[in-house]
């Protein structure tokens, strides 16, 4: 039965076996989850966000819980792109995992240099994070101005032959403008949404809970905002969208596909149930059978708005 189902989707020139990927920064480089699941079953792994040089990230506390959500101010702790290429990528590829490298830079040049490094590797695609709210320089600035998004995408586009996915920040007035600029700049696909900028306060100490004062909000709380943005963007671009933000059930996945995502990423939910991805893959296939959906692409964008 399952055999006759098509779950493969295209995310900008890269075909993946199923639409369930994992969100960058929530899945490390995959190793931690091998205690729980067969990671090669995933559509793909968006690896932990990389920078050109290793970063220690922000001091702790880096985590705060909020209603149906969490804030993080990890601040892109990572071993740097070269370490990744040498020590993590070969391992993941040996396991048969589809690997999408997630990159963050302080300058256009840094992004391009990282692409140059990744281009000669087996990385399957590049997800360009122009939205991380935790890094003071770069981060927010890149992702919130449509002209900058256009320019940086255009430049980075020249530095890589891999599928280039641009990951957008939700902390903007009009996500459609940003998305159109990324497409115009040459993006093959779009990921949205990254975290909403938020804050939590400890009333006893009268201090922010996060040592970084503010952090990125993720989890079920942001799902309505994410759905809205995916829906808005899917109406103005022609490239595939990877939808994310608070996904934790198979219904959530269907919702994102209906509003126009070709694939989805699961983030925060991995922390609560490290088997959520493969559990949901099974449920997705069951859903397809029950609803006589032969090809998962048949429901992408099939919402009927009023």
């Amino acid at each position, binding site marked *: 039965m399952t055999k006759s189902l098509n779950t493969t989707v295209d995310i900008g020139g890269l075909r993946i076996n199923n639409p369930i990927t994992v969100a960058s*920064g*929530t899945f490390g480089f995959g190793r931690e989850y091998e205690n729980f699941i067969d990671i090669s079953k995933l559509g793909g792994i968006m690896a*932990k966000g990389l920078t050109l040089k290793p970063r220690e990230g922000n001091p702790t506390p880096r*985590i705060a819980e909020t209603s149906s959500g969490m804030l993080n101010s990890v601040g892109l702790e990572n071993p740097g792109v070269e370490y990744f290429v040498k020590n993590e990528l070969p391992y993941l590829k040996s396991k048969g995992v589809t690997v999408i490298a997630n990159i963050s830079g302080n300058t256009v040049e840094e992004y391009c240099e990282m692409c140059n490094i990744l281009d000669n590797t087996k990385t399957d695609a590049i997800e360009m994070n122009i939205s991380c709210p935790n890094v003071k320089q770069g981060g927010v600035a890149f992702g919130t101005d449509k002209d900058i998004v256009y320019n940086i995408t255009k430049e980075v586009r020249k530095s890589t032959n891999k599928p280039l996915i641009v990951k957008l920040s939700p902390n903007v007035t009009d996500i459609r403008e940003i998305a159109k600029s990324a497409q115009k700049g040459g993006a093959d696909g779009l990921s949205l949404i990254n975290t909403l900028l938020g804050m939590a306060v400890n009333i006893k100490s009268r201090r922010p*809970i996060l040592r970084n004062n503010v952090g990125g909000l993720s989890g079920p709380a942001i799902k309505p905002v994410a759905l809205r943005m995916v829906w808005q963007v899917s109406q103005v671009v022609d490239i595939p969208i990877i939808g994310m933000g608070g996904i934790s059930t198979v219904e959530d996945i269907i919702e994102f596909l209906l509003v126009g995502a070709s694939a989805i990423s699961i983030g925060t939910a991995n922390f609560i149930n490290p088997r959520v991805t493969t559990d949901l893959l099974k449920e997705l296939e069951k859903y397809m059978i029950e609803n006589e959906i032969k090809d998962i692409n048949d429901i992408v964008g099939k919402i009927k708005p009023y």
Partner: protein
Amino acid sequence: MLIENCRVKKNEKIIEDIYKMEIINEQITKLGKAGQFLQIKVNNQDTPLLRRPISINEIKIDEKVIVIYYKVIGKGTKLLSEVKSGEILNVIGPLGTGFETNYEEKSIALIGGGIGVAPLIELGKRLSDRNKVYSYLGFADNTYLEEEFKKFSTSIGVSTVSGRVGYKGLVVDIFKNELIDKKIDLIFACGPNPMLREIAEIAKLNNIECQVSLEERMACGFGACLGCSIKTIHGMKKVCSDGPVFWSSEVIFND
């Protein structure tokens, strides 16, 4: 690492806001070590969203029971305190590295602050076979779990900040006074960060080996989120998977 639906055998208040819970799970009791911890989902809702890290405080292999002691702090531990025996909790564990316990003929100090005394119980049980164990227990006002420590300790020092029981002041002060006398050559400590930092300094000054069990806010508990990374002399380490127990000499304490 297991994800298990575990039946709660018992859940009872032992004093004020401190609870004792017994959780049944054969495999975790077999695999679990002193100093490791569990990530507990306190209900099936989106609030509280995250699991709560609670140490494995005692293991009763024959009963297949893990004992945890916890203090009601906020929403999560409040809900935990309302769980009834017979109910099921979803638990990930055992997590983290646990204490290094392969010692003999040592004079060992266990120093616990507040609910941080609890993870030292299983440790003390295991160490006391082949070592002398001196326990130092610090509390704010009410004391608890002394009876458990009496079972394996050569001596016990108790302090309360309020002075209600034992020495009035900080437990570290009792320890400082005794550490030469008792010829302490190994320290295990668990409690609030400032206490651990002070103990780390004392250990360094007196050239005593010292293991500390740290706490950080965690999203995952198994090394994936980098929420719990701390600075050490060997670079960034994750409290959840590289710890929670570290050699105090490694840790670069936050201010």
